[in-house]
Structure formats: structure tokens, C-alpha cells
């Protein structure tokens, strides 16, 4: 019963935060110096056309009425039209967002598979050379700008060693060869059973995903180490050791079992954080995802696209945070 209450409290805070999110995006769109009317009709349009479009967009109304109109449009998924691509922003997002999610998903898988064992290892060998090395590797992940690592990895693995196929999401010869079902290129290739496309997509995916994963890995390993140190100092671990259980059993079953839920929460949070890293990574790797869409729209002052993408990223981020919160409350029996 208590747990249900906690869940309800989390759920209740979502609409308020969501409302704030929309309000902030709306306000950012309204303070900007670019006239949305001129962006549509161009600066040579006759005055009566400008006035007509202004009326049509509702820009003559007071701010709160405009916000109401904006909310109404949002409710039916209308984010306006992108000046740059001349598609609706919603269509663009449906096309670009899966690419970002694909990148982030592979990155979080890499990061968890490497980061968690590293963190456990560092905690078990606390104070040794192994621990210090892992710590420095993680600190570097917190200190290196992601675009520098991305550029350097292009220099080394693409230009010098020729291991990676370089920027982009697929080779141009495979362009539009498989039907877009999910817009996750790897999944679409699998569905179409086109192995060449799949191989090409995976090859293109690995490098940006690995760059992105490094930063997530640094955070996950650091948190795992901290949690694990905490757990290993627990009295139940001393008891388990005193009973003569093997080291592996004590570490993985007793100590790790107790931090697993907290780690899942951390992974959900990191997943959300990857959306941010994706913006920069996508720019360097010309990855046609939401991040690149956002930066290109920014440079072209395409405000509908910027606000739409910001809102979608914000909502996804919020969803992951809530998910982390819910998972923690659902899975951990210690939370009352």
C-alpha cells in the first residue's frame, strides 16, 4: 500500500513537470529575435500578406492565448513545419529520432557490459594499481570533451587504420535499400533479411556508439565502484565470508545482488544523459539523428524544428528519469 502511494506520488509529479517543460520551450520560442512570420513568407512579402500570416498564426493574441493555442496544437501532435526540410517537424522527428535511439541503445549496452565489471573489479581491488588505473580511465571520461574523442577516433580508426567505415549511418550504395519500418536501420535490415545492409549498418554504428559509450561507461563504473564499496563493507558480507563462502559467491550474489537495483536506476539515468552526448557525437559523425537535426536547425534559425526537437528530447529525458524512479521504488523492497 505504501509502495502504491509512492508510485502515485511519482506519477502525479509528471504532468506538472511536463507542463513546465512545455511552458519553458514555448517561452524560449517567444523571446527569440527571429520573426516567425518573416521566416515563413520571406522578407520581400507584401505587408498585407505579412499581416494575414500573423493573424493566421495567432501572433496578434496575448501571450497566454498563444500558449493555449500552442497547447492545443501539441495535443494533436502539431509541432509546426520546419522551414529547412519543409516537412512537418513531427514527421522529421519520426524519421530522425530512431537513429538517435539506436545509437544510444547500443552505447548503453556497451557501457553497461564494460562499466559494471570494471566498477566491481575496482571495488574488490580497492587501493591497488588496478583500482587506480580504472579510476584514472573513468576520470578521463569525465574530463574529455566528447567531440575531441570523436574527432581523434576518426583520425585513428578511420583515416589511419582504416578499420571503421567513417561518418554517416550507412554506405551511400545501400541508401533506401530496405523499407523503413521502425527506422532503426539494424532492425529494418534484419526484418528485410538483407545481410549486406545489416553488416554495413553495424559497421557504421560501432564507432560512434563506442565513443558515446566511453562517457557512459566512466559514469557507470564510478557509481558501481561506490555502491560496491558500500555493500562490501556491510556486515552481511562479513558474515557470508565468515561462513566460508567462495569469494565469487560473496561478491556476485551477496554484495552485487544488493546493489543491482540501484545500478539499473543509474543505467536508466545514463541512458537519458546519452541523449545529450548524442547531439555532439552526431554532429561529428554526420549521424542523421535528432542531435544533428537540432544543431543544423539551430544554425539555420529554424525555430519550430529547434523547439520541437528540444521538447521531444526533454520528454524522453523526463520519461527515463521517471522510469528510473519507478524501477527503484518497484524493485527495491527497502523503499517504503
Amino acid at each position, binding site marked *: 500500500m505504501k509502495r502504491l502511494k509512492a508510485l502515485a506520488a511519482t506519477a502525479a509529479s509528471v504532468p506538472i513537470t511536463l507542463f*513546465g517543460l512545455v511552458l519553458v520551450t514555448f517561452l524560449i520560442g517567444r523571446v527569440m529575435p527571429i520573426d516567425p512570420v518573416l521566416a515563413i513568407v520571406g522578407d520581400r512579402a507584401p505587408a498585407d500578406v505579412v499581416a494575414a500570416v500573423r493573424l493566421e498564426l495567432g501572433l496578434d493574441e496575448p501571450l497566454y492565448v498563444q500558449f493555449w493555442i500552442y497547447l492545443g496544437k501539441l495535443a494533436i501532435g502539431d509541432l509546426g513545419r520546419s522551414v529547412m526540410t519543409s516537412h512537418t517537424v513531427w514527421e522529421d522527428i519520426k524519421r530522425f529520432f530512431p537513429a538517435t535511439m539506436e545509437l544510444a541503445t547500443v552505447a548503453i549496452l556497451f557501457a553497461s557490459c564494460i562499466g559494471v565489471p570494471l566498477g566491481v573489479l575496482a571495488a574488490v581491488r580497492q587501493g591497488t594499481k588496478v583500482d587506480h588505473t580504472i579510476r584514472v580511465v573513468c576520470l578521463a571520461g569525465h574530463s574529455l570533451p566528447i567531440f575531441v574523442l570523436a574527432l581523434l577516433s576518426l583520425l585513428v580508426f578511420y583515416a589511419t587504420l582504416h578499420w571503421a567505415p567513417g561518418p554517416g549511418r550507412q554506405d551511400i550504395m545501400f541508401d533506401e535499400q530496405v523499407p523503413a519500418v521502425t527506422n532503426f536501420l539494424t532492425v529494418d535490415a534484419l526484418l528485410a533479411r538483407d545481410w549486406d545492409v545489416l553488416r554495413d549498418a553495424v559497421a557504421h554504428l560501432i564507432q560512434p556508439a563506442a565513443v558515446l559509450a566511453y562517457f557512459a561507461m566512466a559514469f557507470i563504473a564510478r557509481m558501481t565502484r561506490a555502491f560496491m564499496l558500500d555493500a562490501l563493507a556491510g556486515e552481511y558480507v562479513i558474515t557470508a565470508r565468515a561462513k566460508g563462502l567462495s569469494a565469487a559467491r560473496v561478491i556476485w550474489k551477496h554484495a552485487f545482488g544488493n546493489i543491482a537495483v540501484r545500478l539499473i536506476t543509474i543505467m536508466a539515468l545514463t541512458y537519458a544523459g546519452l541523449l545529450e552526448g548524442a547531439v555532439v557525437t552526431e554532429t561529428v559523425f554526420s549521424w542523421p539523428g535528432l542531435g544533428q537535426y537540432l544543431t543544423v536547425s539551430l544554425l539555420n534559425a529554424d525555430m519550430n524544428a529547434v523547439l520541437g526537437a528540444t521538447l521531444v528530447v526533454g520528454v524522453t529525458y523526463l520519461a527515463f528519469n521517471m522510469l528510473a524512479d519507478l524501477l527503484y521504488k518497484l524493485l527495491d523492497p527497502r523503499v517504503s
Partner: protein
Amino acid sequence: MSATSPTGAGADPSLRDPSLRDPSWRDWLLSDTPASRSQAAWGARYRLWCDFRANTLAMGGLIVIVLMVSAALIAPLVVPYDPAMQDLTNRLARPSALHWFGTDELGRDLFSRILMGGRVTLGMVVAVVVLVAPLGLAVGCIAGYYGGVADRVLMRVTDVFLAFPRLILALAFVAAIKPGITSAIFAIVLTAWPPYARLARAETLSLRNTDFIAAVRLTGASSARIVLRHIVPLCLGSLVVRVTLDMSSIILTAASLGFLGMGAQPPSPEWGAMIATARRFILDQWWVPTIPGIAIFLVSLAFNLLGDGLRDVLDPKQR
């Protein structure tokens, strides 16, 4: 902690045993029976410093930061070339005795630009911290001390700002005003304050119902006085740690904004913007974009190391 803790005793026994040598400023600092408040306070600070000094990595970070700050301060006096001076006959030169880090695509000396860029980065960091720490502290202390409606409203607002990924909100905000250093600073402030507010609120909540605050209140102190004179000073320790650990993320955000063309604008020698203009040379003249990258990395690593060290000393429970 005992008074004779890790103060690096030498081989000479007279150094180890205070009774064998003349009383010095160190004995005064480490005295177990301080005669005045200031002696006790300085003694406590000295012990913290001794703890901190034992952490080699953190000391390394501190040294790098001190070097960088002094380099940034004296940069205009020591740079070998004018960072804006172009020399088109000597474009993209390799590092040499004349140009220590080589030259960029307009023949400008990279070493001079890196030094001057340090001023830009440092200036942005200082501006952000000066704005963000008081803002977060004020919001957090007010929410925590007054509670009720104020608390709920302020924390909701905090949640909304936490709900955006930092860089993306900053990007949208800068795009809405005008790309440049000033907007970048405000955008980073706008995205950086919520964690400070949460921290200050948590500290305030734990202090609010303590006996000494009740005692101050009984003497008739106003709420403002209690918050400003008694609660804020006690929040400062964890705030300083948080700020130092946050520095590297501020530096990275500023550099990312510059890299994406939304922060400092060329020809400003900001490191992120320098990488953005030089990234097309990564395959052939790799040092041109790499050197500013190393600069960002070193400074932000130094702040991380320093922050870790400070946290261990000032805030051992967060370790």
C-alpha cells in the same frame, strides 16, 4: 584527528617531537589547547590542508589550476605573438621553435591563442560560478527554511529545469537570444543552478530543526538573519565541493557550445570554437584541432582531481 597527523615528519627526530625544538607557527596551529577562536579556526584549516596535501592527484590538479590561472592572468604580457595576427604564408605550420604549437589555418600562432583562450574559458567559468552559486543557494535555503508553499513551488521549478538535458536547454536558450559568450554564460547558469538548489535545500532541512537554530530564534533573530548568518555559512562546505566538481562540466558545456557554434564566436580564441573551425584539418594537420582539445582535457581533469580531493577532505561522508 590527532594533532600530529600526516604532517610529513622528516628523519630528524627533533622535527617529530615538538618538545625538542623551538615553538613555531606550526605548533601554534596544531595546538590541542588553542587560546583564541582564530587560533582554533586556523588550526582546523591547517589540518584540512595537511590532509589535502597528502593526496598527490589532488595536489597535481591544484598545481595545474594555479598554473593555468596565472598563465591566463599574465597572458597578454607573455604571448609571443598577437593571437589575432594572421600570416597567410605560414598556414598550418608544424610545431617548431618559432611556433611552439604550430599555426592555424590563417597562420595565427596556436600557442598564443591557447593562452588567450584560457582567459576566455576561465572568465566564463568564473562568471557562471559567481552567478550560479548564490542563485542556487538562495533558492535552496528559502525553500528549505520556509517550507510549505514556497518549498513546493521552488522545487517544482527546479524539477522542470532538471528535466532538460543541460546542453540541449542551453542550446535552445542561446539560439533564442544570440550566439555569443554572454548568452552562453547565461544559458549555462540557467541549466546549472538546480543541483545547487537541491543541495542547499537538503542542508537547510537538516539544520532547520537543530537546537542551535532554535536557540538563535529564541534570542529574537529574524528569519533573514538566521538564514544568512547561520544556515548559509554551514552550506558553504558542500557547496564549494560541488562547485569544484561542477567546474569541469561547466568547462565542457562551454566548449561544446563553442564547438556547435553557439558559444564564443570566431575569431575569439575560445578552445571549443577553435576546434570547430579546425576540425576539417583533423586528418592532415591533426595537431591544430587536437591541441585545444588537450587544453580542455587538462583543465577539466585538473578540476575533477581537485574536486575529488576537496570532497574527501571537506565532506568525507559523500566519499
